[in-house]
């Protein structure tokens, strides 16, 4: 028989998080701090609007790029929060989660062999999506001493004549790092100088704890070389609705829409109606959730300090990324032993990039009570390690 599977797929590494999930799921009574989605339910008025759309029989396809009503709301929201203007008719596409936007964005822009600069640690799908689109991933390893921000010097060192895209994943999963305006200015300058496009994954933009999020697309000269990706999963606690979007210049968005049209048709209609309500009346919900995350973030950082566990202060998303280097174990070993000994699941830094070695990702999308219990166990675990 012929080889049934394409080599570029079989050679693709399966997600390190998936591997760890398989271990954890054998242990149903474990407490997990390993989840990458909000603990809040979708606000009721948003769910209600989804239900209402079903009652009214809104069960058909929408246009390929999504409901015009939703695209207009996205443009209003993006203008209001990030000071960037897009034309809802031609510069926005509604996708099945931010993940689809990443995929079709890369596929629309890459020629075989084009290089894509990917800062790591970062979300698991950038490298495989780049490879699937025929591009060549060029990894930049971010450093703890820079608070895991991308510096202009690091970017410059990775640029070659073949560089076409920079993926900019901030606020960052797994580190919680953000990029402030001053950080972005140096990056923007290089992108303009070297004619590089930016795929800016800003899915956590609503969750920052040190001033408002700044999008690179709002910097002078950047709007027309940036694909801005955002969505509803994190800000509005809507992961299961699978809804995201991309904004950018028409010349790219129209080609992304073509791919989307052939492989997805359109994003789920019910989710789109719910999302209109989220953008119109959800700011208060987001502010409340953001406050709750911030309280938990402060709590965890305080606890780490008390235990003497080294951790830079992250200002975004809902993750902290403490260093476990003092224990002389790999991230994998640390996480597996913690799980076996104390039944607490955290994600090894290596699941999100080789340079995550020596770190673990701890999510604070959990109630304070839950965090307290887990932190108590982690404290026991590390004091046992220290007294070995």
């Amino acid at each position: 028989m012929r080889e049934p599977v394409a080599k570029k797929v079989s050679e693709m590494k399966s997600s390190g998080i998936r591997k760890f999930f398989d271990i954890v799921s054998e242990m149903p009574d474990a407490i997990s701090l390993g989840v990458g989605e909000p603990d809040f339910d979708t606000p009721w008025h948003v769910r209600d609007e989804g239900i209402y759309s079903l009652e009214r029989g809104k069960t058909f396809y929408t246009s390929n790029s999504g409901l015009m009503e939703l695209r207009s709301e996205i443009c209003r929201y993006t203008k209001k929060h990030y000071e960037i203007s897009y034309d809802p008719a031609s510069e926005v596409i509604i996708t099945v989660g931010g993940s689809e936007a990443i995929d079709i964005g890369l596929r629309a822009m890459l020629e075989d062999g084009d290089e894509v600069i990917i800062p790591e640690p970062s979300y698991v799908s950038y490298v495989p999506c780049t490879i699937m689109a025929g591009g060549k991933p060029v990894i930049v390893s971010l450093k703890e001493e820079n608070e895991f921000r991308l510096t202009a010097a690091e970017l410059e060192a990775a640029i070659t004549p073949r560089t076409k895209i920079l993926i900019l994943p901030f606020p960052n999963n797994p580190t919680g790092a953000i990029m402030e305006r001053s950080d972005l200015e140096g990056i923007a300058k290089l992108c303009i100088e070297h004619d590089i496009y930016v795929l800016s994954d800003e899915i956590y933009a609503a969750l920052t704890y040190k001033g408002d999020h700044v999008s690179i697309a709002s910097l002078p000269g950047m709007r027309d070389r940036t694909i801005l990706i955002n969505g509803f999963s994190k800000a509005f606690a809507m992961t299961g609705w699978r809804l995201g979007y991309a904004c950018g210049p028409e010349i790219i968005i129209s080609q992304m829409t073509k791919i989307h049209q052939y492989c997805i048709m359109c994003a789920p209609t019910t989710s789109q109606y719910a999302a209109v309500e989220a953008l119109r009346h959800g700011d208060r919900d987001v502010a409340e959730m953001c406050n709750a995350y911030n309280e938990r973030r402060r709590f965890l950082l305080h606890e780490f300090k008390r235990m003497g566990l080294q951790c830079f202060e992250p200002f975004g998303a809902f993750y902290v990324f403490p260093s476990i280097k003092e224990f002389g174990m790999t991230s994998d070993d640390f996480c597996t032993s913690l799980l076996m000994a104390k039944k607490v699941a955290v994600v090894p830094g290596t699941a999100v990039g080789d340079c995550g070695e020596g770190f673990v990702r701890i999510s604070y999308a959990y109630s304070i009570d839950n965090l307290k219990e887990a932190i108590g166990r982690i404290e026991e675990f590390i004091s046992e390690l220290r007294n070995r």
Partner: protein
Amino acid sequence: MGDKDIQEMRMSILKALEYDGRVDLNELAVRLGLDATDIANAMSDMEKEGIICGYQTLIDWDKTDDERVTALIEVRVTPQRGQGFDSIAERIYKYPEVDSVYLISGGFDLMVIMEGRSLKEVSQFVTNKLSALESVLSCATHFILRKYKLNGTVLARKHEDERMLVTP
């Protein structure tokens, strides 16, 4: 601290206390990024100003062996000259059986919430005490059959975390 900061601090303390009256002040200080002494001072100021009126416990009595019934009583009254509804409201809230009294807009005037050991006890109170008050024109008593949600807390069922244990 400026006036605005104090107002903001007060609001965040109240929100936290409304959710958990027993919260540890040092922990709250960490969570809010404030100083524990400032929080304690703000709380005592708000107690003096009557903004914080007490620290109670939310109890689902239905889960205990205690027999009790709760009634909502709609009361129509004649307001008194120069006093409006205040003096009749006071006559009513002074009864220890009465839990809460609200002045209401619409078809009736006062909403009285009371607890008793039995239907009989409540109905005797309504007949002998409440209806007997001179300015009370009429009462309509509604007994509560089941409490699903109380002060923002759902009593009916426990909320389970249905997320997968590890996700990217």
